[in-house]
């Protein structure tokens, strides 16, 4: 009688342990699934990933448009402040 009761107590304890373990496994799984959904939403190839050959060679950021503007300023920089203000007014996306 006493042995059977003790055995039952042991079984209950063990079952509880497994139930908790299962819950932990399933919740970890759900966290990972949620993370993969969040990561899938932000999958993008931004302009930062596109590097020109020149950029790779000299190892620093080169802005294609800025380079063109600088080339024009090198030829004629009169009214530079006003022109630069206009150039910087471009809308950011």
């Amino acid at each position, binding site marked *: 009688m006493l042995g059977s009761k003790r055995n039952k107590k042991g079984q209950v304890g063990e079952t509880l342990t497994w139930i908790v373990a299962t819950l932990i*496994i399933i919740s970890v799984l759900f966290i990972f699934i949620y993370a993969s959904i969040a990561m899938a*939403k932000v999958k*993008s*190839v931004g302009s930062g990933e*596109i590097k020109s050959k020149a950029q790779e060679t000299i190892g620093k950021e080169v802005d294609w448009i800025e380079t063109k503007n600088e080339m024009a300023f*090198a030829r004629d920089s009169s009214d530079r402040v006003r022109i630069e203000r206009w150039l910087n007014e471009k809308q950011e*996306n």
Partner: protein
Amino acid sequence: MFFIKNKKGADKMLSMYWFAIIIIVSVGVVAMVYIFYTAPYEVRDAESEVLSNQFANCFSRGGLVNPMLASVGEFNSGFDLLGECEVNFVVENEYGWSQREQFFVETEFYSVDDLNNPKLVLSEGNLDWKPSCFIKDKKDEDYDRLVKCNEERIYVLGEDGEQYLIKILVGVGKIDKNVRQ
């Protein structure tokens, strides 16, 4: 004796339990991989920037204006934007894209004397997309379903030393392939 029989039953239950756990974890891993790898890549930002750079490269060569575009202080209103800049807006024949253009470009050409009123405006493609470029509410859940735009401004000089300013606005639709439905 009773104890031994009971233990055998418990072992069987335990192996079934592990089998169930393996199945649950496997289904979870497959779900994670499926969710991540079936999500489309958003490439429109890069695409619009590449297009704007192509147009900028077409208008400005080493800081000088393309002679086909402007000469002697006058812009050429007959300038073939797509032909001269070697760009085409042909897209895959999917999602009914062939019926509705998925790109647009609008270029405004200014003289340095008047930076508010363009001397010439040239555009190509589907200009119905243009108003979407000015919506800035990135928190809105439908924001990703709008056209992706890129604006660039360049400064160029004419052969005669005339100063010109050019605004390039490019928009890329292609929502069906870049945003999860």
